[in-house]
């Protein structure tokens, strides 16, 4: 029996629980100095003058950089391209934006770095930064997408003729006339608020530069070390060979630790300029201001449906407030690309306008736009159910893409590899006894308690692979080597921000080589040691990096078998690798295995380490001369079901695998205060073949926590001048153990994909949209007020309380409750 499919806890757990993790801020370097940044207090302004004299005089200050110096020593980012790529002069429809790590003359969001200080200790650096005097001239602020789209709106970016950066459109059939003919039509707006991922570890960078070697070493809390290397080398004008990026333990990423930040470039800039280790660890307030926001999108929809709930036609006009157009604003296009998610709609029109404002850029965040799409569709399903007087589950079942219709081409051209949504829903309903709940609900009502049940479904495609992208590719590399003692090292281009894929990859390799799991070491996150890879995003590490490791291990396996066959005087086909040995498949159980098969003849089995030793130490021998020396293989894996050649393939499809989840929550709502408590949550998740259920479930638990946070608590708020109002964890509140439901379970359905050799789809990102939708649905169910539609999150007490009172009949409901 192999390891795949077994419940095995993460291999780093004990080390981390003992406090022996090494996160970037823990990396010790001799004689370090510390960076602090001067950030713009205005969302939109011209910089008239920067005076550093008061900071310069402070004892302990080592260096101060102004924008002009940084501009001279580095290359700019274009919003369309990182600096190592030849800049595309047209950028996008003639709209250009070039920015250096420090703002030279213009700031476009509050929190933008304007000057940087380095000192002997962090407190002095912070004090010096405060002494830098910057004179600004305020410009008109574009504080919302609504304002940005108004005719005559001031520009969020000077020189642009409007505030639209990208317009994504997809269509199939004739939605307008189908809606006109539909028996029932509903319209409305779904709104997803602005969020941040908030990994518990703030961003951190430590860099050193050696004049002897001319090399820069960067320790970075990053998800993508190789991409990071390219960006740093490009920004500093260095050869990428001269930059080493090391990713120590990472305290969570969730998409926000992608490379290309101003702060990281500045740390590298100072390390080279001072030839001394430079450290920077983000303050939590800086995280909220400047790391990267996500998700803020509204969806205006119009849907035509049949009496039985079948969605006949759908039009969605979406607008995303992407702040400044750096970072991961492409998430808004992904939202459009996913619509209408797991539902089959014959006539569908999707429009998504990605609009710039004077807010922080977007950064990646778990779901990468898919969560907004799913949340939108789930709300539409509930609205159809309400309008048609149907059960909310029934409406979903009658609109799901049928299980036998895969691979299924969605409106955008996306080719959904596989699925069985009805199966997941059926499995969920078997876990959640709806009838029993209705009785519980009725009983609670008589005691004045309002309980509600909500169901949500999410589609979370994984393994993003965009054409011509320097970041998002669906391939990766891995090296597997066995040393003469039989120990295995796996070096991967993928990384783990704490999600556990190193454990899953070790299991895959151990199975393929038939060796004990604890003899396999996995090395990740070092550009000097690991093969080129794209790192961690889009739940790709296990399914793509694990597949690369599998391919490399397979090569080693063949060689071991070939040599083992000679040593055992057997046919390689008759051999198996397991438990650290190569044995003749028909071998009797040990201890007889060591006995000769016939007097004076070969044995039944040989330890794999002895085969390895033979390959290393006796390369010219009879058993080994027919194979190439050495036991090392590097392989690259390109995932299936990615289609980048529309001329010949008829489609552009950039997500290879399409995992999904059905989820139910039970909430209790306090009608007097609007306070919502989540009592129970159950989910059925399908990511194809499950390599390690423990890891998939644990990741999904975390996703659900983030989904519940989004549903009930989390929201970035700005004032009219685009000043961020939520800059601490006391304002942007995350769920604690108390807010999480006492009962939370995740079950699996396994619908394998053909896109990977093991049938595994991406896992880890799932869990956000389903709970968002299910909570909204459950709160409506709990209140039972006709016409109540909670289309905007988070469902903070105030919002629920107001919503209750805004709809007619609310007062009676309060009385009957």
């Amino acid at each position, binding site marked *: 029996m192999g390891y795949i499919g077994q419940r095995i806890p993460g291999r780093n757990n004990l080390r981390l*629980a003992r*406090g022996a993790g090494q*996160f970037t801020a823990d990396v010790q370097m001799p004689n370090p100095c510390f960076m602090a940044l001067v950030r713009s207090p205005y969302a939109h302004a011209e910089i008239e003058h920067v005076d550093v004299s008061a900071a310069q005089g402070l004892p302990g200050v080592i260096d101060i950089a102004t924008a002009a110096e940084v501009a001279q020593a580095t290359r700019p980012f274009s919003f369309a391209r990182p600096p190592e790529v030849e800049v595309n002069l047209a950028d996008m429809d003639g709209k250009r934006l070039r920015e250096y790590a420090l703002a030279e003359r213009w700031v476009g969001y509050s929190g933008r770095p304007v000057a940087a200080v380095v000192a002997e200790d962090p*407190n002095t650096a912070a004090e010096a930064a405060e002494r830098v005097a910057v004179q600004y001239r305020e410009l008109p602020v574009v504080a919302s997408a609504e304002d940005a789209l108004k005719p005559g709106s001031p520009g969020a970016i000077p020189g642009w003729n409007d505030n639209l950066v990208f317009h994504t459109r997809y269509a199939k059939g004739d939605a307008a006339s189908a809606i006109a003919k539909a028996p029932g039509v509903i319209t409305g707006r779904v709104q997803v608020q602005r969020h941040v991922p908030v990994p*518990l570890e703030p961003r951190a960078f430590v860099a050193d530069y050696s004049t002897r070697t001319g090399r820069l070493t960067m320790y970075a809390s990053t998800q993508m070390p190789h991409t990071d290397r390219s960006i740093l080398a490009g920004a500093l004008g260095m050869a990428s060979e001269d930059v080493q990026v090391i990713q120590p333990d990472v305290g969570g990423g969730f998409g926000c630790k992608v490379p290309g930040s101003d702060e990281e470039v500045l740390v590298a800039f100072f390390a080279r300029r001072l030839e001394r280790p430079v450290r920077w660890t983000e303050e939590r307030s800086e995280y909220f201001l400047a790391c990267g926001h996500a998700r803020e999108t509204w969806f205006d929809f119009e849907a035509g449906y049949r009496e039985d709930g079948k969605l006949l036609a759908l039009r969605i006009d979406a607008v995303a407030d992407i702040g400044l157009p750096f970072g991961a604003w492409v998430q808004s296009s992904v939202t459009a690309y996913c619509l209408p998610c797991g539902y089959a709609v014959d006539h569908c029109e999707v429009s998504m306008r990605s609009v710039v404002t004077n807010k922080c850029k977007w950064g990646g965040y778990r779901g990468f736009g898919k969560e907004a799409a799913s949340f939108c569709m789930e709300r539409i399903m509930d609205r159809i159910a309400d309008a048609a007087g149907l059960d909310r589950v029934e409406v979903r079942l009658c609109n799901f893409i049928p299980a036998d219709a895969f691979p299924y081409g969605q409106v955008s051209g996306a080719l959904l590899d596989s699925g069985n949504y009805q199966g997941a829903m059926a499995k969920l309903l078997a876990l959640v006894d709806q009838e029993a709940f209705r009785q519980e609900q009725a009983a609670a009502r008589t005691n004045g308690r309002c309980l509600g049940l909500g169901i949500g479904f999410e589609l979370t495609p994984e393994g993003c692979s965009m054409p011509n992208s320097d970041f998002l590719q669906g391939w990766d590399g891995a090296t597997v080597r066995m040393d003469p003692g039989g120990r295995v090292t796996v070096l991967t281009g993928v990384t783990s921000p704490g999600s*556990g894929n190193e454990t899953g990859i070790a299991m895959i390799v151990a199975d393929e080589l038939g060796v004990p799991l604890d003899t396999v070491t996995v090395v990740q996150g070092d550009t000097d040691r690991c093969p080129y890879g794209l790192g961690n995003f889009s739940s790709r590490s296990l399914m793509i990096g694990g597949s690369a490791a599998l391919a490399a291990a397979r090569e080693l396996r063949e060689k071991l078998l070939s040599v083992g066959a000679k040593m055992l005087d057997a046919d390689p086909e008759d051999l198996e690798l397991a438990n650290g040995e190569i044995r003749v498949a028909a071998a009797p159980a040990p201890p007889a295995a060591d006995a000769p098969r016939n007097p004076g003849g070969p044995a039944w089995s040989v330890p794999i380490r002895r085969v390895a030793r033979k390959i290393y130490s006796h390369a010219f021998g009879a058993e080994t001369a027919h194979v190439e020396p050495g036991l090392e293989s590097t392989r690259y894996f390109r995932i299936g079901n990615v289609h980048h050649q529309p001329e010949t393939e008829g489609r552009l499809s950039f997500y290879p695998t399409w995992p999904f989840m059905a989820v139910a929550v039970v909430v209790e709502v306090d009608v007097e205060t609007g306070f919502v408590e989540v009592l129970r949550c159950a989910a059925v998740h399908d990511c194809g073949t499950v390599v390690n259920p423990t890891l998939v479930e644990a*990741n999904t638990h975390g996703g659900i926590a983030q989904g519940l946070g989004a549903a009930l608590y989390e929201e970035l708020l700005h004032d009219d001048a685009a000043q961020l109002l939520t800059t601490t964890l006391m304002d942007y509140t995350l769920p604690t*153990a108390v807010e999480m439901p006492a009962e939370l379970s995740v079950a699996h359905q396994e619908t394998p994909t053909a896109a990977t050799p093991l049938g595994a789809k991406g896992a880890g990102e799932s869990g956000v949209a389903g709970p968002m939708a299910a909570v909204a649905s459950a709160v409506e169910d709990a209140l039972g007020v006709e016409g109540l539609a909670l289309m905007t999150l988070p469902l903070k007490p105030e919002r629920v309380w107001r919503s209750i009172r805004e709809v007619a009949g609310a007062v009676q409901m309060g009385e009957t409750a």
Partner: protein
Amino acid sequence: MRQPVRITVNGRELEADADTRKLLVNLLRDDLELTGTHFGCGTGTCGACTVMLNGRCVKSCCVLAVDADGAELLTIEGVANDAPHPVQQALAECHGVQCGFCTPGMVLSAIELLQDNPAPSDAEIREALAGNLCRCTGYVNIVAAVQLAATRMAQGDA
């Protein structure tokens, strides 16, 4: 301004000359190289910096190093010697660890809870850990791990 600080950390008496602005968390991390205590917010909200000061959990980002003068401190590095503490062992086995950034703080809060209440209910565990944020696990396996540790500690077999 600097001031001498004398503290006992994990049983060792130490003396440091600390900047009066220095936070206890930074004294531990930067001067004593005890980097198992993490810094996640600086506002007392996340709990990553949790240590025990004179036997009670505190957020070491909210204590000035000079205010810890004369105190006895226990950090994650000191909760166990060779064998891990039952809470650490249970967190590893129950996979109550993902990125591990919150984990040292969780361990200390859980140890404090189990000192006060050796047989807590799930709700009591959640209450006791409410000052420690985790963004990875949804707390599911952490709560299970603390229960497992409590059971084992009660049986004395850990």
